[in-house]
């Protein structure tokens, strides 16, 4: 990656490792309902997208999927393929809508878009594995969980971006 400062490289590395750790830890936690997952591993990916752009975000996402897949032992299995396909589809939608909408979506809106895409792509890819599944019967739950998890991840991502921004460009001391 040309033209990147050591600072940026270090931060992207940190974000990648955070993504792997969150992904693996979340995989260990019991899930309240099938198909429902907060997607904490996507939080660093969202932050990377917002601060460092699409290329770096795909990099962080790739590291998360590969190392996370290795550590959780799901590499190459159906869950891995579904997660990777859905993850990259959602990243693509977030990047494109960010470019097209040009700031009309806040990080929360972007994240909700990404989470919903993730849910839909997940259902679509799962169909290739099991012939067909009742897409309609899982749709309400999927959309709702995308709305909530996307909103939460977006809010957290916004906070983190804000923190990083304050550190990079500290606001001037108030006068008086």
């Amino acid at each position, binding site marked *: 990656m040309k033209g990147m400062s050591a600072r940026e490289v270090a931060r992207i590395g940190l974000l990648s490792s955070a993504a792997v750790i969150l992904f693996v830890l979340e995989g260990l936690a019991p899930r309240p309902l099938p198909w429902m997952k907060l997607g904490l591993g996507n939080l660093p990916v969202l932050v990377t997208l917002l601060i460092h752009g699409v290329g770096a975000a795909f990099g962080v996402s790739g590291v998360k999927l590969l190392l996370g897949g290795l550590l959780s032992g799901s590499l190459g299995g159906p869950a891995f393929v579904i997660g990777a396909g859905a993850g990259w589809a959602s990243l693509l939608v977030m990047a494109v809508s960010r470019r097209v909408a040009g700031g009309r979506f806040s990080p929360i809106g972007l994240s909700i878009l990404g989470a*919903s895409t993730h849910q839909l792509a997940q259902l679509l890819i*799962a169909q290739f594995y*099991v012939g067909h599944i009742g897409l309609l019967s899982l749709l309400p739950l999927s959309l709702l969980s995308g709305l909530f998890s996307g909103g939460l991840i977006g*809010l957290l991502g916004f906070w983190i971006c*804000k923190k990083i921004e304050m550190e990079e460009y500290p606001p001037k001391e108030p006068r008086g």
Partner: protein
Amino acid sequence: MTGRLAPGEMARLWQVLTRADLVLICLLGLGTAGSFLHQQLGSQVGAEVVVEMDGEEKGRFPLGPPLKVSIEGGLGISEVEIGPGGARFFSAPCPHGICVRQGWVRRQGETVACVPNRLILRIVGSTGETGMDAISR
């Protein structure tokens, strides 16, 4: 992230959310409600459960007298419990057990899929109707 935000500004959610965000949230909310209502009101309780593997039917049982059947999938044996109130995966050899946790299904078109073991439970009407608008393969 261009443009700096004043301290404390981000605590206020309504200042963060843009109009496009709100439209998106409303659309998704409507989509959720719509698909949920469509599912609940538009479908009836089914009569039979079909067990499929890779799209092929492996068994078909009426939702009647309580019954437990063992079905061989891609990984091993999944147990399916059937009763008058529906059907469910009782046990499965898959690593996450998502299919078991999904619990009972009873309405036409409702499905439980076990991706690792390549098995599907599907509720159909007595004539084999799935109650779905369309099935894509």
